[in-house]
């Protein structure tokens, strides 16, 4: 923010209108590109099956027949309301996986940054190496491992592997090293604070921006995850939205639109599925905006 306020008067003093017009045009084109699919999704959600495939208004404009409410009703009641289950599951997986991964990362990052113990350097080197491990390459082995424990096709099969976030630990470690001065901890120790109380009362408040960032990253990661739940779950009632909508899409393209028109459900379902995170990002702007750059700190 400080950078913004110092440059603002300067820009005002020296306006360069032509370059600004070009720059704004460039931005407008970008915004158009990034918004077209979302605009299409909103428009298409208001159409019935006929309007979708052969509507006269074209793909990017509303039909005369505004069918949004009926589509929503359809969405929430289709096949015993399975969409609502998926929505609930997505919340369950994203919140439990995201909160759990964040708590674990904060603790570990703090431990790495503020304590010296045998094996610390080795453990941290291992962690850094693991940031490079492609997590999807672990999905199939994890599936076999969990199936030996009879844990596949349960919510645990999605939640437990989501707790792993080596990058979150790395971010927390880097951030903690700078944000929590050792002198402060030593002063608290002199005052007789215990190590754990110190963590909660002295350090944690200082770490808040990084905690929010890691939380956002892991909630988004779990909410958007597809491969892991696709591999782990076979009962459709346990699916999160991504896998559920993928299932509908397969059904719809399989029977070529025969029977119930699943395509309109897929479209309205996609729209509803992106609302929670889009709203979260728009309302939590001030928390994530600088925070996502944490990784570039070093």
């Amino acid at each position, binding site marked *: 923010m400080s950078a913004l306020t110092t440059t603002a008067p300067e820009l005002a003093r020296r306006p360069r209108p032509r370059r600004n017009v070009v720059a*704004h045009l460039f931005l407008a084109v970008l915004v158009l590109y990034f918004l077209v699919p979302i605009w299409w999704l909103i428009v*298409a959600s208001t159409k019935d099956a006929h309007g979708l495939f052969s509507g006269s208004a074209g793909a990017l404009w509303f039909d005369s027949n505004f069918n949004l409410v009926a589509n929503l009703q359809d969405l929430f009641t289709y096949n015993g309301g399975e969409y609502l289950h998926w929505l609930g599951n997505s919340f369950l997986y994203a919140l439990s996986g995201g909160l759990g991964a964040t708590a674990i990362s904060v*603790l570990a990052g703090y431990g790495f940054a503020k*304590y010296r113990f045998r094996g610390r350097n080795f453990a941290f080197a291992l962690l850094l190496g693991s940031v490079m491990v492609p997590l999807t*390459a672990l999905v199939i082995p994890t599936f076999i491992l969990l199936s030996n424990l009879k844990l596949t096709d349960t919510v645990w099969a999605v939640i437990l592997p989501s707790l792993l976030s080596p990058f979150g630990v790395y971010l927390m470690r880097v951030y903690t090293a700078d944000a929590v001065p050792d002198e402060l901890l030593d002063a608290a120790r002199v005052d007789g604070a215990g190590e754990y109380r110190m963590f909660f009362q002295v350090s944690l408040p200082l770490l808040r921006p990084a905690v929010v960032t890691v939380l956002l990253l892991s909630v988004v990661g779990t909410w958007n995850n597809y491969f892991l739940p696709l591999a782990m779950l076979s009962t459709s009632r346990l699916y999160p939205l991504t896998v559920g*909508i993928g299932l509908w899409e397969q059904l719809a393209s399989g029977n070529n639109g025969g029977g119930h028109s699943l395509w309109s459900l897929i479209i309205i379902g996609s729209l509803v599925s992106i609302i929670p995170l889009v709203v979260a990002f728009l309302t939590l702007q001030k928390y994530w905006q600088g925070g996502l*750059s944490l990784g570039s700190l070093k």
Partner: protein
Amino acid sequence: MADHGSMTTTSAPPAVAAPAGAPPSPRRKAASGSEKMVARRARVGWVFIAPFAVVFVAFLLAPLAYALYLSLFTKGLATGTKFSGLDNYVRAFSDPSFLKGVWFVLRFSLVLIPVQMAVSLGAALVLDSLTTRLARFSRLMIFLPYAIPAVIGALMWGFLYSPTFGPLQQIASLVHAQAPFLLSQDNVFYGLLNAVTWQWAGYYMIIIYAALQGIDPTLYEAARIDGANVWQIALRIKVPMVSSAMVLILVFALIGTLQFFSEPQILAPIANGSITPDFTPNIYAYNLAFSYAQFNYASAISFALGIIVFIAVYVFMFATRKRGSSLS
């Protein structure tokens, strides 16, 4: 140095950021008080790490080790499961399906990453030079696809590409032309390229933008006095100053792209057969495991892919090391 109250802490110029591993000398003085205290504190350190260590062992080391173990066995219909050494790897690296998939993701990364980089760096540089309301709005809108699951992003583009009701065809038919079907055999590379760029460029843009905002603006003033123009400031000052952020992004983009799965998997049913069950190594491994129950060979494919990613990332890190920036 850090100002804890606000998020701007994070945009400290990378060059000035203190090395995180620097030995905190004052602490050592205080800690040298008693042996017992040092031992106790070491224990506390482990307690903080313990939950992560458990998850790390259970869901990273154990699956890795297990995948390696499984990949050394072969399950035959008549013979049962028996140890076969590196046979599965020999098979994988002479399996046209696997090699074709690896070739595709490598080729795809080579085109995708520069394109994504150009879009996100260009957008970040423009956004950094403007403080208007439109610029703030644009920043948010360009970032928005990050909040949308890859599955939904792929579906939306799939619809937009559709020759029956997508806008591309409708626009083309206004001039009585045939729009290219971006999921056809010849075009699917570009169809996917567009969908992935759309999905991730905004996220990368935000990271670069935040790094740009952390640069001390007096640098620009000094350069301007020395007669540098806008382009020179952008290329000679801004880009080098955010190079560590860009290396980080490149590494993530590379790791992500080599594991390409969701988008092609979702687009396969509507791509009229141009996305095959061995399209990328991950899709191939998934189909081997879940359609053919070849878990041993699927594990070998997963492990081989992991090794390829590791090598690719290290080659890349080595190549960019000269710039003086790396993860560690």
